[in-house]
């Protein structure tokens, strides 16, 4: 927290700080409930605060600070699989500064720095700031951008970015490292590494954005990340830990398109007062490739699986956004179909026995959000999410690959 305070203080005390600041932001406050299979979680809250302050020195240069703070009394859907109805609260704070320098001809250079802190309370015996998975992430990056055109008609902005992240899990150490302090009592001690989740990531990203005629926008992005685990040793076929460290590459290719269709005013005899439809479609493919393996230590299995973490994943995400021109009521619906196939990980029987099939997981989710403006930038919001996951494995002692979950939120959103 001290890093946040110091950074904010330095920026606010900068000369002429109050002269030409612009402010942007939004705040979301929700109450809701979450269900995992047949179990309901308690009624809980979710808040999301976003603020940006910008200052320009000239058309050539300027900077902005952005802060984000999220409190969640819910487990997010992407984390559901790990723990069912596990009680969870999280607090996510981040702050970043980005400097923009523009050159003639549409070129820009945009360096940035930022820091992020995430805190978790996941069990009844875990206090704030003592969470096992609390982490700090320090990040820096630079983006080179060119604004140009594709032919006569289409504006084209492309960016090449380099980002570096250092993630430090404050409290997480391998138990083996802690147990090593027991010395002779433990006997021969394994050495998987100590801070096994800490990573340094170097990421390069290429992104293109196009504005096509006919109120159509299109983007494409490719990102390649090299992830070094600073202290996670490789396990070999005999279950022994080597001195070499884990290293992953993670790449993602994503594309998205949206188009504003013609407004319509009614459906058959039902006058809706003018509706603007904007359908969209997103497609992505990602791949994780790791040199880490896994050795299943259950005595009846004792199975070595090379490339245990490697997978390919694709997503197909159509959506539609409908806005009432009369009332500004907005309805957004997004369906996501995801398919992940593991390259090395095997499917298992309920008993844990391994099958010869590689593990795959198919997920569907539907997200619906309705927004009704109340006054000024204030709006009432309803959100719901339904997700279903199916996998070809039946062994779920420690992780749920097969589940249905849904949640709903109701609350207000305020935009500056």
């Amino acid at each position, binding site marked *: 927290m001290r890093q946040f305070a110091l950074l904010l203080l330095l920026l606010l005390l900068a000369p002429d700080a109050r002269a030409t600041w612009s402010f942007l932001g939004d705040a979301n406050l929700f109450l809701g409930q979450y269900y995992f299979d047949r179990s309901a979680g308690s009624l809980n809250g979710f808040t999301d605060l976003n603020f940006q302050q910008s200052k320009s020195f000239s058309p050539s240069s300027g900077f902005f600070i952005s802060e984000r703070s999220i409190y969640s009394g819910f487990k997010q859907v992407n984390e559901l699989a790990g723990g069912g109805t596990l009680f969870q609260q999280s607090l996510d704070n981040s702050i970043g500064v*980005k400097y923009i320098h523009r050159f003639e001809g549409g070129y820009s250079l945009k360096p940035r720095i930022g820091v992020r802190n995430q805190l978790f309370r996941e069990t009844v015996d875990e206090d704030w700031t003592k969470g096992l998975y609390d982490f700090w992430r320090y990040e820096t990056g630079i983006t080179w951008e060119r604004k140009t055109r594709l032919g006569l008609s289409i504006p084209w902005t492309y960016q090449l970015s380099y980002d570096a992240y250092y993630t430090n899990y404050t409290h997480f150490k391998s138990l083996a490292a802690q147990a090593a302090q027991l010395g002779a009592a433990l006997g021969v001690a394994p050495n998987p590494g100590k801070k096994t989740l800490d990573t340094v990531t170097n990421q390069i990203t290429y992104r293109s954005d196009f504005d096509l005629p006919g109120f159509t926008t299109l983007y494409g992005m490719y990102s390649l990340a090299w992830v070094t685990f600073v202290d996670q040793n490789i396990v070999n076929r005999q279950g022994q830990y080597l001195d070499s460290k884990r290293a992953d590459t993670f790449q993602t290719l994503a594309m998205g398109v949206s188009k504003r269709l013609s407004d319509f005013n009614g459906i058959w005899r039902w006058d809706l007062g003018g509706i603007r439809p904007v359908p969209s479609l997103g497609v992505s493919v990602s791949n994780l490739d790791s040199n880490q393996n896994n050795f299943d230590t259950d005595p009846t299995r004792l199975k070595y699986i090379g490339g245990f973490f490697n997978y390919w994943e694709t997503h197909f995400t159509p959506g539609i956004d409908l806005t009432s021109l009369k009332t500004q009521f907005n309805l957004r619906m997004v369906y996501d179909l995801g398919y992940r196939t593991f390259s090395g990980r095997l499917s298992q029987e309920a008993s844990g026995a391994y099958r010869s099939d590689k593990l795959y997981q198919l997920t569907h989710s539907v997200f619906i959000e309705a927004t009704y403006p109340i006054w000024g930038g204030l709006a009432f919001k309803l959100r719901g999410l339904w997700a279903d996951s199916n996998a070809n494995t039946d062994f779920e002692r420690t*992780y749920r690959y097969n589940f249905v979950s849904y949640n709903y939120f109701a609350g207000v959103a305020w935009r500056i």
Partner: protein
Amino acid sequence: MENIIRAVVLSVVLVSSARAIPAPVQIQLVPQGQVEIRGAGGEWTRVSGRINLEPGQEVRTKDASAALITFSDGSKLALSPNAQFAVEKSDRQETTLKLGLGKLRAFFAGYMSSRLSVRTPTAVAAVRGTEFELSADSQGQSEVNVREGHLEVSDNQGRQAVVTSEETLRVTERGMERPQLVSLTDERAQQAARPLVVMAETGKDQTRTMVEELRNRELKANEAQLGKNIIDAFGRRVRLEEYLLRPAPNQFKLLFLSFRENRFDWGHLIETFKNPIPNDLSQLSSIFAGSFFSKTAPSNWITYMEFFATNTVDSIKETITFGDPTAIDFSGFGPSVGTRYYPATMDYKQIFSGPGVPGGTRTQFRLQHSWNNPNPGRITWQQDVVNNLGVLTPIFQAAMNPANAAEVAADGIETINLYGNPTIDFNTVTSFPSGKGKADFMSKTTYADNSWVSTRKILVSNEGNIFDFANPNADAFTKVGNYNVEIVVGSSMFQGRDIDVIIAPEILSQKKTGTTQPDAFSP
């Protein structure tokens, strides 16, 4: 799922079959100086105050005069001196304006903005939420300057271009030129860190960092996938790690560590074999199985097993020593069983250690099986427990000829039986601490010297839920394999502490196999 897909498809179909209902958009004129209007083909009339503009009406401004045109969604448009302007069409579907001559500056942000287009003699500009300037001169040349946002401009040659922030475009009677970015020194250049740029940059940064975020989030899921992070039956987080070690070529050691806030429990399972074991340890289960009741002489077999658990102060150790497999006639179990290879001896001990244990360490319980010794041609098994003086003493002994069906049916011939003797007999009480129907079983044994040992075994899910035998929706026993076993060992010798470990059920099953008495074996 099919229903949801159908619903999405249906909504798209409904959109396409929608019908348009015309409705007026309110447009008002606010004159500044000498401003005139006229209807279609009518006379120019000077306007002095705010009036509504209707489709078909034209506006013109004179020297040193201007006009502000406002729209019902808050959008605004300013006309320069000597400009000619008209509202050509305005309904719910579309609003079309015309700039015949002069210059206008527009700021469109509301919902109607993107249903609006402005025509000049040579260009049509469709608005997409934009601040822009548009001019038309008497030679038919138009110029568009977009300060912020997007415009879709069409020329009279059928060409179309999207013009974005800080771009300028000239359109003549010969058509449009290529849009140009304004120079950073141009007065039309915008500030570098203006709100729209900040919003766009923030969004793109979040997309990029989301890739790192997703990857990082995956690490946490991996911990769960590998069974390293679960909740125990008391709602506490338990971190688990298991390691396989190879202290000797014929031995492996499974080390299990469990950590909760303020306590650390750990233990190990050691298995030693007669001969070196293969690197592919998945073959071990067949070697283990071959040690008991094999029809043929095994080439390798288990000789020693040790289960150890501790809270770092107190500990419980169970050891089993196996003799070499010997051919024994088990036909008393049935004519088809015949001769099988079975360990010549088995010696199981339950040993407690800790500051509260008399002498620091003592064996509380022992079970031995032995072929041919001391009874030739028989398996003798003997149970020892601590007596009232705390000394390990035989309480039961029996012998059985496994080839003799009558002896098998009688569970052997008893040679020692001191059950009921108060100087040595022990008392075991069982209970269900979480209530009947819950897989939470506790067994407490009190020995003749008043020492006691309790073992609580709980089937608990990774979310900390105790398996519910009574709940028909829990898929009953088919999912038992998806539960962890939490074992809480307490003892009068542990001075109020306990040992609380969560282990894979497979460890229990192997231990049980090693300690089951021969009469319970099913060939």
